[in-house]
């Protein structure tokens, strides 16, 4: 306290009391917005998840506290289990493997190449990231359509066209999401690789380490911090991913691409089971809370 106060010129030093008041005043708009529209809904999740709230039917007029019924229903609900499985597959192949590996591959290969070439490739990859998610969905809807570019190419080399979104729905949404999200990982890894000192790699090269050995033994361990942080961030982003899947397949065909956010939406806004929908979003929120705490721990922020 003394140290801070002594940095202010005596004449202009405001009393600590008025400083506290001014702080409260400056923080109040943020507090108010966050409280009303962020924390209240988050807390309400915990309440609504234990009710039978619905938009139609008997439960609509008379919302009751039903204890853990939503959750016991959940475990018997085959669609819920499918959507958990879909979410895990989508997370692993689109976020953890797809975007990270693709992002690293591009960043690694770009390291030290021609500048113009690098910025052209970078811009192309980033264009899929900057474009709003709905546009990405439309672009992939066209690309994978029966009469789309992918099939035009396949027919061009003499194969039968494939109804991608029906035959390989999960693969389709994963590819689309990797296309959309890779740029983020690419940029994280570009920054990380830029910080790896050249001397270390050169020393290993002189010692006769092959390119592969240098990659596995030196480069990847040196950027492991970025890899883990990026993994948590990408997981968090992908966990809440709704728009791309919803606009591309709507969770179908059947429920082949029904992830937790899509199932939550269907239960709450199509079947009007708000209580059950909230219980599903609570599951989503809890996974998010764990990942978010992990992220904070990894960042090791000093405040």
């Amino acid at each position, binding site marked *: 306290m003394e140290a*801070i106060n002594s940095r202010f*010129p005596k*004449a202009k030093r405001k009393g600590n009391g008025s*400083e506290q008041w*001014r*702080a409260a005043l*400056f923080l109040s*708009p*943020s507090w108010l*917005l*966050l409280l009303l*529209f962020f924390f209240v*809904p*988050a807390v*309400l*999740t915990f309440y609504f998840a234990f009710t039978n*709230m619905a938009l139609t039917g008997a439960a609509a007029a008379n919302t009751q506290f039903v204890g853990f019924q939503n959750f016991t229903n959940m475990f018997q609900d085959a669609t819920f289990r499918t959507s958990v499985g879909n979410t895990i597959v989508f997370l692993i192949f689109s976020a953890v493997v797809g975007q990270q590996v*693709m992002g690293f*591959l591009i960043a690694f*290969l770009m390291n030290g*190449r021609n500048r113009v*070439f690098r910025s052209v*490739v970078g811009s*192309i990859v980033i*264009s*899929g990231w*900057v*474009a*709003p998610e*709905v*546009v990405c969905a*439309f*672009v992939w*809807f*066209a690309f994978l359509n029966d009469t789309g*570019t992918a099939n*035009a190419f396949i027919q061009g080399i003499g194969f039968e066209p494939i109804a991608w979104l029906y035959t390989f729905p999960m693969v389709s949404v994963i590819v689309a999401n990797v*296309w959309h999200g890779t740029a983020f990982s690419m940029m994280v890894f570009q920054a990380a690789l830029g910080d790896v000192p050249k001397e270390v790699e050169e020393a290993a090269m002189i010692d006769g380490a092959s390119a592969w050995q240098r990659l596995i033994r030196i480069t990847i361990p040196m950027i492991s911090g970025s890899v883990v942080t990026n993994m*948590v961030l990408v997981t*968090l*982003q992908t966990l*809440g991913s709704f*728009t791309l899947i919803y*606009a591309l397949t*709507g969770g179908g065909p059947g429920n082949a691409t029904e992830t937790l956010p899509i199932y939550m*939406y269907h239960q*709450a*806004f199509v079947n009007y089971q*708000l209580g059950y929908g*909230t219980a599903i*979003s*609570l599951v*989503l*929120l809890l996974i*998010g*809370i764990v990942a*978010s705490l992990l*992220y*904070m721990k990894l960042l090791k*922020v000093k405040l």
Partner: protein
Amino acid sequence: MSSNVRKRPRMNRFMVGRVLPYIILSFIALLFLLPMLWLVLASFDGAATLALKVPDEVTLSNYTSTLASSDNQRSFGNGLLLALGQALLVVAAAGLASYPLSRYQLRYKRPFMYVILFATGLPITAVMVPVYQFFLYMQIQDSLFFTILFLAASALPYSIWMMKNFMDSVPLELEEAAWVDGASIWTTLRLVVAPLMLPGIFTVGIFAFAGSWGNFLVPFILLQSPQKLPAAVTIYQYFGQNGIVQYGKLAAFSIIYTIPAVALYVFGQRFMSQGFSFGGANKG
């Protein structure tokens, strides 16, 4: 002699090592480019199909008819209102909040910043159902104004975090100099701190604007009246409703909708690289 023989394969491997990354990267770039290239070409094609093809005749008619439609104008207007309103609100609230968080010793600063960082990670999707219930209960659903407030609240955690970091990098010495010269706190904020914070203000504003301009889920759930829907939801309705779609027009709509996001990204790059470069003032 023997050293000569050995050198040759080594040279070859060296050449392969040099050229191969370019080949692989070009191939990846092509795969990334193809879907987007269709969108661009189709938007200039009067008879666009879903497959990639060079237009027989390049035309701007898709753009002119898209822009001439009053429905489309309104949906772009709604999107602009949501994004701009939210960005201004976020910049004002986060800017004010960042000052005491950066400059004062507050007992609750550490927990507050932890909560902010924690909230940054939470997926907004997970709170949308209770948010809708809350809006329904308060009878504020289908309102552009309250949708702006919610969008602002959801962008605040990372905005406050970024803004505080920017504020930390503005040297205290300049403010102290202004105080010595007799300026009040408010004058100092307005004339000394705000101009130095411009890169931060722009970065946070751009982030916030781009976030809500591209947001589909929030307006999709909180707004119902067709005349209130922003461009993000309109596009979805055009191609989601499986009617006869004029793909060229929808492509033009998508490009017009994407341009602000791209422009802001390019513009924002400038500020982000300049963001933390006022170190020089420290040494004066």
